[in-house]
C-alpha cells in the first residue's frame, strides 16, 4: 500500500452494485450480442429476404443466415423487434456515460489533456481512426465467437462463478497485455 486515496473503492462499489442489481431485477449485463442485432438490421435492410416470419416457430421468425436462425430464430426476432431489453440497455449506456461526464468536475482538464494528446501532425492511421475501426472489428468478432465480451463473460460470468468467464478473461488478457505493450509508441 502506498498511501493513495481510497476513492477508487467507491467507484468499485458503484460498479459492483450495478452488476448485482441488474441480475436481481432483470438479467446480467451483456453488450456484444447487440452488435449482432445492429449488424443484422443493416443486413435485413440490404437483403429483406434474409429474415422471414414463420408462425410455426416459438420466436415467430426464420432466417437463411444460420447465426440469426440459431436457438429457434431468437436473434432474428430481436433484429425484427429492435425495441427489446438488450437494445434499450445498450442505448442507455452512452446516456449514462454522458451524464457522468457532464457532472465530472475534472472534465475540462481531461478534455484539454485529450486535445493535447491528439494535437500535432497526424498520421493517416490517426486521421482516419484506423486503429479504432480495426480494433472494434477484431474485438467484436472475437466476442461473437466466444459468445460474450468483457461485460457478459468477464463481469457477469465471473460474478456467477462461470468457468467460461474465467477462461475468456484469461485468454483476453494474455493477448491484450503484450499487444498494448508493443503498441506503446502509438500512445
Amino acid at each position: 500500500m502506498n498511501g493513495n486515496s481510497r476513492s477508487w473503492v467507491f467507484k468499485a462499489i458503484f460498479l459492483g452494485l450495478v452488476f448485482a442489481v441488474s441480475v436481481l431485477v432483470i438479467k446480467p449485463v451483456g453488450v456484444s450480442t447487440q452488435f449482432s442485432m445492429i449488424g443484422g438490421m443493416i443486413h435485413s435492410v440490404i437483403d429483406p429476404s434474409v429474415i422471414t416470419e414463420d408462425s410455426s416457430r416459438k420466436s415467430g421468425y426464420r432466417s437463411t443466415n444460420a447465426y440469426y436462425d440459431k436457438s429457434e430464430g431468437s436473434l432474428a426476432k430481436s433484429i425484427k423487434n429492435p425495441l427489446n431489453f438488450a437494445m434499450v440497455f445498450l442505448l442507455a449506456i452512452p446516456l449514462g456515460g454522458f451524464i457522468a461526464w457532464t457532472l465530472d468536475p475534472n472534465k475540462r482538464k481531461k478534455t484539454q489533456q485529450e486535445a493535447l494528446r491528439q494535437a500535432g501532425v497526424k498520421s493517416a492511421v490517426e486521421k482516419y481512426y484506423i486503429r479504432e475501426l480495426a480494433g472494434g472489428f477484431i474485438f467484436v468478432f472475437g466476442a461473437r465467437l466466444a459468445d460474450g465480451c468483457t461485460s457478459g463473460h468477464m463481469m457477469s460470468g465471473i460474478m456467477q462463478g462461470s468457468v467460461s468467464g474465467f477462461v475468456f478473461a484469461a485468454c483476453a488478457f494474455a493477448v491484450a497485455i503484450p499487444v498494448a505493450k508493443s503498441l506503446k509508441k502509438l500512445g
Partner: protein
Amino acid sequence: MDLFICLATGTFFGAALYLSDAASPVRMRQMLRLEDYTIFKIILFAIGLSNVLLFVFNMAGILNLSHLSVKTMHLGVIIGGLIFGVGFGMVGSCPGTSFAAIGTNVYKQALMIAVGGIIGALVFSFMYKGFVDMGIFKAMNFGKLTLFKISEKYPSVTEIGYSGLLVMGMIFMAAAWFMPDKRRD
C-alpha cells in the same frame, strides 16, 4: 416497466464505466501496459462485491434463479477470447466501454470503434455456419459449467453452493484492496 428497468440499468452501467475510467481508451491502455492498476482494481473489487451480493440476495430469498445466465464453455471461448484480446489491446476499449465513451469527449474514437464492431459482428454472422461446420462450438464443450452449484440448471465443478461465491468474492475484494495503484519500478 421492464424497458424502463433496462433503461435505468444501462444508464447506471454507462455512468459506472465512466467513473471507473474504463470509458477512457488512454487510461485502459495504461492499465493493459501494466503501468497503472487502478481500473483493474476497481473491476476486480466490483466483481468480488457482486459475488458477495449474489450470496446475500440468495440468502435473503430475493434472487430469481431464472435471471441467472451462464454461458457455455467451448473452444470458441478460447479462440474468441484470444482474438478479442488483440482488439482490446490495440484500442484499450471493449464493446461496453466504447458505448459509454460515445457520451464523453472521446466520442469520435468511440463511434469509430462501434462502427468497426458492427462490421465485425456482420462478418461473423456470415462466417458462423463455417465455424459450426468446423466444430468449434462442439470441441471442448463443457456445457454451462460453473465453479459452484448456483442452480440445478447448470453443471458445477464443486457441490459447494453460494457460500463458494461468498468466499471467492471476499478473496477478490481483498486482492484488489492490497494491490498497488501503480507499478513500482
